[in-house]
């Protein structure tokens, strides 16, 4: 198992290298630069700034420099947020995104699995259609529609919750972003769970479990859910990575100081090191979470040998 994990991590290095290379050159292909202003800077000042950040060197030299710095663990300074390194920015933004994301994913799993399971056990009942209808709506409505709608209803009309802001991380400021993050995930997980549970509940070994005289609750929890949750587990890897690295849209609308906001601003300002840093961070997270999912798979399904 440990052996397997180490081998998987080593094999991630080439993947990461390709991602870094692609991201680096695509960023540089985008027109404009980090220090372009409406008003043209005097040429000698611009040359000074470029020299300070080594942007005057040929591109391949910059690329080699960047790679060497990354290996040393140095992600460089931000061009926009002066006096901040990229590592500083990620360290301040990530805990906020992580907290919202973890809340959202826990809520999504609890509600999604519960709703999907009950829907599967009452296949084609009114409850089933209600859950699936809700799920379809949840998947279809984009978060940039859902977020202002929720803010309007709960913030403006009902005045129950703050419309936006962070308030130093007080609970009431987190509710709406978490709900907006969780809704489509609940919907997707509910559909996944229902689909695979319907299939598992019709399999022969469930009939065997009933013939043993097990209570229906035990048939569902012990025999069906373990198999029925496999697709949900494999979905959770990338989903968790996406949710905890912060939704660009949701963090902008609710003005949450998470990592997603730095990513957007970084891209808009051509703040190369910030964008690169976040991309690498995101890639590493996805690789780690996928590894975790594969290890979990071996635990949930003995036929999958992690060797």
């Amino acid at each position, binding site marked *: 198992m440990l052996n397997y994990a180490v081998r998987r991590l080593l094999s991630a290095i080439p993947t990461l290298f390709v991602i870094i290379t692609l991201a680096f050159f695509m960023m540089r292909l985008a027109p404009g630069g980090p220090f372009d202003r409406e008003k043209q800077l005097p040429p000698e000042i611009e040359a000074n700034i470029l020299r300070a950040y080594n942007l005057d060197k040929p591109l391949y030299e910059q690329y080699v420099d960047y790679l060497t710095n990354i290996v040393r663990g140095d992600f460089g300074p931000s061009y926009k947020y002066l006096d901040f390194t990229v590592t500083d920015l990620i360290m301040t933004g990530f805990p906020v995104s992580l907290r919202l994301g973890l809340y959202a994913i826990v809520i999504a799993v609890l509600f999604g699995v519960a709703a999907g399971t009950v829907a599967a056990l009452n296949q084609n009942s009114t409850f089933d259609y209600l859950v699936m209808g809700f799920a379809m709506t949840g998947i279809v409505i984009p978060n940039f529609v859902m977020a202002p709608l929720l803010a309007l209803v709960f913030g403006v009309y009902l005045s129950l919750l703050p419309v936006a802001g962070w308030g130093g991380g007080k609970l009431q400021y987190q509710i709406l972003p978490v709900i907006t993050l969780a809704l489509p995930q609940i919907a997707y997980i509910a559909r996944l769970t229902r689909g695979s549970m319907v299939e598992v509940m019709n*399999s*022969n*070994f469930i*009939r*065997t*479990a*009933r*013939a*043993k*005289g*097990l*209570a*229906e609750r*035990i048939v569902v929890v012990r*025999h069906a859910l*373990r*198999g029925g949750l496999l697709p949900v587990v494999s979905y959770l890897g990338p989903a968790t990575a996406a949710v905890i690295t912060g939704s660009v849209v949701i963090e902008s609308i609710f003005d949450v100081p998470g990592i997603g906001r730095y990513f957007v601003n970084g891209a808009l300002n051509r703040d190369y090191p910030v964008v690169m840093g976040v991309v690498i961070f995101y890639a590493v997270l996805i690789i780690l979470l996928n590894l975790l999912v594969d290890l979990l798979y071996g635990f*949930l*399904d*003995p*036929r999958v040998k992690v060797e």
Partner: protein
Amino acid sequence: MSDAAISRSGSGRKPILSVRGLKVYFPIVIGGLIRKTVPLKAVDEVSFDLYPGETLGVVGESGCGKSTLARGILQLLQPTSGSVVWLGDHIEGLPAAGMKKYREDMQIIFQDPLASLNPRMTIGDIIAEPLTVHRPELSSEERKQQVREIMEQVGLLPLMINRYPHEFSGGQCQRIGVARAMILRPKLIVCDEPVSALDVSIQAQIINLIKGLQDSFGLSLIFISHDLSIVRHISHRIMVLYLGNMMEMADKRILYEHPRHPYTRALISAVPLPDPELEKNKKRLVLEGDLPSPLSPPSGCVFRTRCPLAQDICAREKPTMTVVSATHQVACHFWQKS
């Protein structure tokens, strides 16, 4: 068939299982715009008694309701009507919780050995699970001990206890199924085509295993199969089903040597004989046509569309089970003709 007729076949012993007029219908929705629900009569008016230590064979073509009958008896499917009496208690229509105390007495062995085992549990856990439900007072050590004993009895090595179902062959999986069914020492085991998915050599092993266990523990068996040779080997009495209806029921020897129903005769004539000379000269009764749809079964006798003896009366009147002898009943208007 009258109650007296059924009990007469039992020669005075008390049956452990009495089934009367058992019907299992499935509602099928047909039609696009104008929908209507039509009952699919999977099992129609089946009645029989089962005695302690006896094996009742159930034969018939695919789709004639054999497996549905098994599940209707064990309440894995809700019967539409009729009664199932287990040692004096009516169990038809009981919910899962009410069935629990009967489940330890009546177990089932399924057709597909591998698919019937939860792929995510070790076989030790699979075999032990009935004990955890029905004998919660046992310690986990005692439970393990019983699992090892039953594994040995069915010909599995106890050291395989921590393996998963996919690591076993089909025959071994069916041995696991037998062990799981046997661990509570039930009084009845319904074998729903237990060997149809196995190689012939393995079939014999499993059949003899089941037969051996029956001799050791005095089990009653309901043995379902479409293989007449196997049923003949293991059964005391045999029931012939066609489109969910009983055609004939008799002691094994009588049924094979003096079948009364034209369907039974056709089935028996189709069994290949091991002697090539006899096989070459055998007269085969070949049935014309296909099995009618159980959604719209023929009026009167369901077999009449393929019956060589069919007359007008067969379309008008459904034949009832008639007593030929104490151990022989048949549902045919013309049983005396043969």
